């Protein structure tokens, strides 16, 4: 009876661990799918000329991929242990704060007529946002050693 109980507990822990890993993998895969749709969509819209309905469809594809990624990310977040949740939370806060600061600086520079759309266009601001998130992630990981 005791052996059966231990077996059930171990199996339950294994299933929980496996579902956590699956959720993490799903969020990473959906992030990669988002990247794989966003970059070609950007390239197509920049270098090819399409009718307006086709352009809108091309725009919608990465947006849907991003929405799926956010959904999967939130699901994975809720399955993480509390240390990993803290690391992700701080990474998102640092990423969001730095992006908001960059946008504020760009807006103020734009008011003075000092702006460089090549280095600070909308497309690149998205990349900077991801870059800032990863900076936050590295800082937080280092802080908690997780």
């Amino acid at each position: 009876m005791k052996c059966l109980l231990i077996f059930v507990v171990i199996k339950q822990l294994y299933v929980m661990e496996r579902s956590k890993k699956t959720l993490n993998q799903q969020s990473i895969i959906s992030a990669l799918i988002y990247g794989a749709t966003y970059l070609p969509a950007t390239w197509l819209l920049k270098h090819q000329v399409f009718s307006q309905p086709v352009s809108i469809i091309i725009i919608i594809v990465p947006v849907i991929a991003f929405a799926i990624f956010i959904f999967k990310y939130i699901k994975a977040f809720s399955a993480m242990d509390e240390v990993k949740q803290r690391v992700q939370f701080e990474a998102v806060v640092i990423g969001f704060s730095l992006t908001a600061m960059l946008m504020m600086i760009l807006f103020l520079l734009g008011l003075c007529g000092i702006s460089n759309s090549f280095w600070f266009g909308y497309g690149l601001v998205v990349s900077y946002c991801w870059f800032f998130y990863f900076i936050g992630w590295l800082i937080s990981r280092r802080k908690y050693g997780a």
Partner: protein
Amino acid sequence: MKNTIKVERAKKNWTQADLAKHIGISRQGLNSIETGKFVPSTLLALRMAKVFNTTVEALFQLDDSGM
């Protein structure tokens, strides 16, 4: 915040991975708690106390500075 997780772990002859599995967190997460880098939630502290068959107060103590 000080803790006696390492001592309790040694009593049971458990590795960090063993304890992490018992309380349902990652080994790295447990390492952050054990080294005092992260303060666990009440739920996790209670879970830890339960597996060691002790109390939360025995497992976690305030520093001299009260932090």
